[in-house]
């Protein structure tokens, strides 16, 4: 009986040592750094750099997602971004986490120039350098570059920055899908 046990243990031990060695070898020999997934995730985030997700910027959030973090923390991206992420990672989309804010219409910052005192605080705050101006001069927002992150609003000592919702005009207007009419889908009223 005991010989049987000893043989069994020895065989398994031999196998394990060989395989363990093999894996140890591979772990060292084939070590890789970096994660290409982060880039892919980052490219799906809206790059508002607003930090609402709880990370200092979109890329750190992308890294967190790549490491298995929740995908529903980015309010500017909203449902569309969540869906895209879910698609990429092949997981179920979840509703936006309200703790981080709600999805809003697109906005841009506008500086009321006659009140601006040129303190440059907003320039320091803007993550995408969308504000122009020099010390003690009137500042203005380059509308096309502003991501609407509203990071510049709070630092302004004279509260001269407004976030304005971008209204659709005849050139940005697009068709809406037909109203669902008689056939309401079963998806409505989901706990989404």
């Amino acid at each position: 009986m005991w010989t049987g046990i000893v043989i069994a243990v020895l065989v398994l031990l031999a196998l394990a040592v060989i395989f363990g060695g093999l894996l140890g070898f591979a772990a060292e020999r084939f070590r890789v750094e970096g994660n290409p997934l982060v880039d892919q995730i980052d490219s799906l985030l809206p790059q508002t750099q607003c930090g609402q997700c709880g990370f200092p910027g979109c890329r750190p959030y992308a890294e967190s997602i790549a490491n298995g973090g929740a995908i529903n923390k980015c309010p500017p991206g909203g449902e569309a971004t969540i869906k895209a992420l879910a698609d990429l990672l092949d997981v179920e989309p979840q509703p936006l986490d309200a703790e981080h804010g709600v999805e809003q219409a697109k906005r841009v910052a506008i500086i009321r120039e006659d009140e601006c005192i040129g303190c440059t605080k907003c320039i320091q705050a803007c993550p995408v350098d969308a504000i122009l101006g020099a010390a003690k001069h009137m500042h203005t927002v380059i509308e096309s570059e502003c991501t609407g992150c509203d990071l510049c609003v709070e630092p302004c000592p004279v509260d001269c920055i407004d976030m304005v919702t971008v209204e659709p005009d005849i050139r940005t207007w697009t068709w809406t899908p037909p109203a669902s009419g008689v056939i309401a889908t079963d998806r409505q009223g989901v706990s989404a």
Partner: protein
Amino acid sequence: MTQLWDFAGGIHPAENKHQSTALPIRAAGIPDRLVLPLQQHIGEPAAAIVSVGDRVLKGEKIADVTNGMGVPVHAPTSGVIESIAELPVPHPSGMNDWCITLKPDGEDQWTARQPVSDYRSLERNQVLELIRDGGISGMGGAGFPTNIKLRPPRDRKVDTLILNGAECEPYITADDMTMREQADEIVAGLKVMAWILRPERCVIAIEDNKPEAVEAMRAATKGTQIELAAIPTKYPSGGEKQLIQILTGMEVPSGGIPADIGVMCQNIGTAVAVSRLIFEGRPLISRIVTITGEAVQEPGNFEALIGTPVQYLLDQAGLQPEKVNRLVLGGPMMGYTLTTTAVPVIKTSNCVIAATAAELPTPPPEQPCIRCGECAEVCPMELLPQQLFWYSKAAEFEKAEHLNLFDCIECGACSYVCPSSIPLVQYYRYAKGEIRVQRAEQLKADRARERFEARQERLEREQQEKEQRRKERAKAAAEAQAKKKAEAEKAATEGDAVDERSAKAALVQQALARKKAKTEVAKPQAPAAEPAQEKPDLEALEKQLAQAQSKLETMQGMLEDAKAQQADNVEKLERAVAKNHDRVTRAEEALADARQQLASQPESQSTE
């Protein structure tokens, strides 16, 4: 006989054309007001070059496009500019856009005209310039600026010039009547375009349900090299791509333009406009519009000035307002509904249908798609409309795009036959719109990332430089020297900033101008009112207070600095300091309130 090919799919809707061909083209006359949208074609909107109160003459340029793709707008008659404002324009959105309103003075006085009797003596470029200055954009479809279209890419040679007189949509007879009555002008215009392009072949294509037009054109083209093709009646044979396939058997490559395969397609009306411009010096200030539908008593075609309100034309055709259920601009297959009759006729408006409820009934409610494939059978682009629909509806835009959503010409044949009465085209339009928005957002996100990364890099660099300097300073023997250097560097960076600023000055200026109007309307965001019943968030309030205090300090510091330097923004800064004082007091009060409230609340409630 010209060899003809067939195109895939297609339908045969009821034609309803005879109603509006009974009478010859009538002149609509001059209405009380002319409303001239600054954008009447794809491309850039024009900018007004007149001001309110100016008197303009007929044919005078009143708006122009300086850069980008576009053509000018001319005054259709003489009169006074009454306003430049946002008014309803013909657009599926039913939204307003910038328009110049002209109050005619009734004199219809021409500005100086420069007809070219012998255009052949000019450079081709000069003629193309004339066409641009004449405000001519395509009159058969999307309204592409004709001069640009007539300038095919350098490596392309146009072998076949097609004049599109198919007019395959039901109801519309504007081109039909034009061909019947203005055949010579059409030929003259075609000759001008042919001279510009030097094609080997010129074809005028007319659906064989317009024998009178075919006859008239045959007479007018007698003795010329121009071919006349009577093509089988089948919607949408007038679609540019289908017409090219019918006449040449070739297909326009997806995403390309006809010139890629050496073909160009122009509308009949466009040819007339070119002819009138060249030989009469008359820019595009009027067009033929079909007014039809069972809600008008005297349907027919009108020569209407651009800017004529639709109401005016409907009245002339004897509108019975109580009968109208739906008002369609364009044909029943591709036109869009109007919300108001105040919109003007523009360069691309070919037809107005005042339809009764019986004539164009509301379709029954949408049913589920049964994948019967009828739509695929009729699609002239050989798409799979049911799949496009399925993916568009489910917002799987990537897949819809993969199935060539963007090749759909929105002809509506699929919706026409769908047994489940699904508004397919609307789904496609929605999907296309969403995809375009997404693309724009992606672009914007990419740019934001670049800018963010650039900024991070710059900050990093500055940080390093600072570090460097600090070290150097510590190391350096001569303190004064180091200081100087630092100053020099600082100046340099400032110089940079100024440079950047001047480079972008134009941009800023533009942004400012655009913003100004909007800012006035936009109300400053009201701070979210704290619901009284909620438990006050002490922490947040404390943070607020601290922030306010620190801001106040900064401001006071700045103010003192400014005072010391006698800067010119002292006044502003004083205001700011006052404001921040307020802020601090408010924050303090709020905090005190909150503390009080908390104290008065029983413990149990706050721990729940």
